């Protein structure tokens, strides 16, 4: 099987990053697809939770948003926003947040608020939701973004969710003792972050995607010296994704 879509590859690439035992906070959209896929394929023992308060649902049907009644079905416990969002930063838990974004900079800071002037934007997005909270408090963030120059930018129009801030130890100096971006999953590859600069580099490119394509679609220079090629989706991965996770193509387009 060779044909697969960008969204499918993104969901699988992110799902592969999740391990049994991880405590994963998932947002709306591709995040939800990656979470549901991971639960079925890679990490049935991972615990997924949602800012709305549903903890460890059975995820037998794909929730469309974190407000979907499917996130409160078959759970261990149904709570509310304050409980769920406080768990993000709980010192005894290693929590990983899956967040979509509209813009990202080289330090993994995210914009899901607006383009242009904040007070009268050219384009308004939904806003932070729990993203700012997850970025501030979780042990790590995996973000999703379409690989385009206008999205991978030198300077965000609005900094909704703090990543490595200005690099180095600037995040810690803000007063955020833990957390920070782990990976950025795009439709072309997966970016990670260097120590100690905390600058983004290209960790892997998807099968058949030339490094040049990635560089052309990134609005700032990135190190590509350590890039490897990702495994293509297996027939079984695609079958599960298409037939079991999202048979209605709610998020897969």
């Amino acid at each position: 099987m060779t044909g697969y879509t960008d969204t499918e590859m993104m969901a699988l690439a992110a799902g592969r990053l999740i391990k049994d035992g991880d405590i994963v906070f998932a947002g709306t959209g591709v995040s939800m697809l990656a979470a549901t896929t991971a639960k079925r394929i890679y990490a049935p023992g991972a615990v997924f939770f949602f800012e709305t308060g549903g903890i460890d649902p059975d995820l037998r049907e794909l929730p469309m948003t974190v407000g979907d009644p499917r996130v409160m079905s078959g759970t261990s416990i149904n709570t509310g926003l304050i409980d769920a969002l406080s768990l993000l930063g709980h010192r005894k838990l290693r929590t990983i947040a899956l967040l979509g974004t509209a813009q990202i900079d080289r330090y993994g800071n995210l914009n899901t608020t607006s383009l242009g002037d904040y007070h009268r934007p050219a384009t308004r997005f939904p806003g932070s939701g729990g993203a700012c909270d997850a970025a501030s408090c979780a042990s790590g963030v995996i973000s999703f973004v379409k690989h385009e120059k206008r999205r991978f930018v030198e300077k965000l129009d609005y900094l909704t969710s703090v990543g490595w801030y200005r690099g180095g130890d600037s995040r810690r100096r803000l007063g955020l003792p833990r957390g920070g971006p782990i990976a950025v999953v795009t439709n072309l590859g997966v970016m990670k972050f260097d120590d100690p600069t905390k600058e983004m580099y290209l960790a892997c490119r998807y099968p058949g995607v030339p490094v040049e394509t990635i560089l052309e679609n990134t609005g700032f220079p990135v190190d590509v010296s350590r890039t490897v090629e990702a495994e293509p989706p297996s027939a079984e991965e695609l079958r599960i994704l298409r037939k079991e996770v999202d048979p209605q193509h709610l998020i897969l387009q």
Partner: protein
Amino acid sequence: MSDIDDKLMSPADAVRRFIGNGSQVAIGGFTINRNPMALACEIARQGVKDLHLVCHSHGQALDLLIGAGCVSRLELAYGGNGRYAPTCIRFRDAVENNKILFEDYSNYQMSLRFLAGALGVPYIPSKSGLGSDVIRLEGFPPGIRKERNVASKKVVIAQNPFSNDDDPVVLLPALTPDVALVHAQYVGDDGTVRITGLSFADIEQAKSADVVIVSCEEIVPRSIIRRDPDANSLPPFLVDAIVHAPHGAHPTACYGFYDYDPGHLNLYRAAAGDDETWRAYLDKWIYGVPSHEAYLEKIGDTALRALRADPERGYAVGLDRK
């Protein structure tokens, strides 16, 4: 006679009695779930103006009220409805075209602000948002900062006085709205409220408000609702008006009763994108129906039946959600 005779009223009476132009209103639910739609539609129908909405992540009620011109100020964390509106459409239009004043917070921040109001404390500290533009940029103009129910500052950055190290925290001002709107599954005829499934921040919102209006799917006897007091959400004395409104969250979901309505949400999306079709939507679904019952009749039994929740799973299993 039951204990709630003086609180039981129609959506029209509840809105007329407790909500006026300029009221600050907290809406319960979350994006496409348990929005108090029967109440929101009635607010739109009565043409209330200049509402100051305060909410975390909202979708349908938020967008309808903005689209109907009822809102002049908005504090929120998120406006979106998933695939039916990745960004809420009339909300987006209002922000991009300067039709409302708005102030962005995060979900945790907004929830903690409601919690502070519920606890009766003036603010609550948090780490969330340090370094972000959510903290740095104020959305509201300075001119309204002295008005009632507008925080004197969006947030305050302070040092933790219990630490000897540099340890900044974000102080979040309490919210104490005039009115909280809640749609619940059950109200007892003693006035006790029960929400099933996730409660989102509904309980904190209700406790933070001067007036609480609860619409519900069912009114049940006192003996039933008190059989399991651990499951209940609000005591009678916090509730000012009770509205019996089956399907009162439609087209959003109500766990254990019905799912969200993809058909109507798609119809809404198609209408909301253009001023003219949007006006037609309002005429048909809001102004053109005199009541919640008439609205449901127009939606139709067949459509409602398709949304009915599986009793064990709480949602409509296998529902076509495209």
